């Protein structure tokens, strides 16, 4: 073992120590962190004069909820209890209860089951953003993704909101070109959701 080899070994060990400090220690700030400015992102008050109507759902015991939806949207009860489907110009959406297994967390379930399922089911699936938030005191995970099927491309904002029993998923989809104009309404709908069991 010559001097160069010893110098390289010492350099490698020092680099690993420095890496540990950057990853876990006092120099963590040096690392580029993805900062999710959570609640503030979806709680932006964007001027929108569309009036909303209350929908109080009492289909499933222990999973009562209230959500506010624009009066201009066409709302129907969904196939499953506790669900709605909706249609509006240049888009559509749904609200549904989601049973999360007890041996996992909602976030883990989204990342390990829901997103892989979406990747398979949605043509040209591309995640645009994922962030954690609070919706009326409930943990929520907002997934924004794009579907590139070409006829035309669309964007979906999916909010997974945790609950005492089931979780709820609010999916709102719009054509990519119209998404920006509809996003304020989507945010208002998602922020209006609240469980009514308490």
């Amino acid at each position: 073992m010559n001097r160069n080899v010893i110098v390289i070994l010492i350099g490698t060990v020092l680099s690993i120590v420095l890496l540990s400090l950057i990853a876990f220690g006092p120099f963590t700030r040096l690392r580029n962190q993805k900062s999710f400015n959570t609640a503030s992102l979806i709680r932006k008050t964007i001027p929108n004069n569309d009036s909303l109507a209350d929908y109080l759902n009492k289909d499933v015991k222990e999973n009562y909820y209230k959500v506010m939806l624009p009066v201009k949207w066409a709302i129907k009860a969904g196939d499953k209890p506790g669900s709605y489907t909706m249609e509006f110009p240049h888009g559509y959406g749904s609200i549904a209860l989601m049973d999360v297994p007890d041996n996992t967390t909602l976030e883990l379930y989204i990342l390990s089951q829901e997103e892989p399922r979406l990747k398979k089911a949605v043509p040209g699936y591309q995640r645009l953003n994922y962030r954690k938030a609070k919706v009326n005191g409930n943990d929520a995970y907002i997934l924004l993704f794009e579907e590139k099927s070409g006829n035309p491309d669309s964007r979906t904002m999916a909010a997974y909101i945790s609950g005492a029993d089931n979780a709820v998923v609010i999916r709102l989809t719009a054509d990519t070109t119209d998404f920006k104009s509809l996003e304020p309404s989507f945010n208002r709908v998602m922020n209006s959701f609240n469980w009514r069991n308490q």
Partner: protein
Amino acid sequence: MRQIMLFISMAVIGGGLYLKFFYDVPDSQTQINFFVSWFFIILGVGGVLVDIFWEKSVDHENRDKDEL
């Protein structure tokens, strides 16, 4: 032996680069991914450099022996 070490080092670098650029990291695991990927890259590069310089030193020794 040195060729095996070089191969393993390259594989470790490849693993690190894969974790760094291609692995779909859950947001809750970015910190550990950052550490593990760079750890592999540094270890792999260290291994390659050690392998190269080790060969040179052995070559020098062999040459010295031949000259004697």
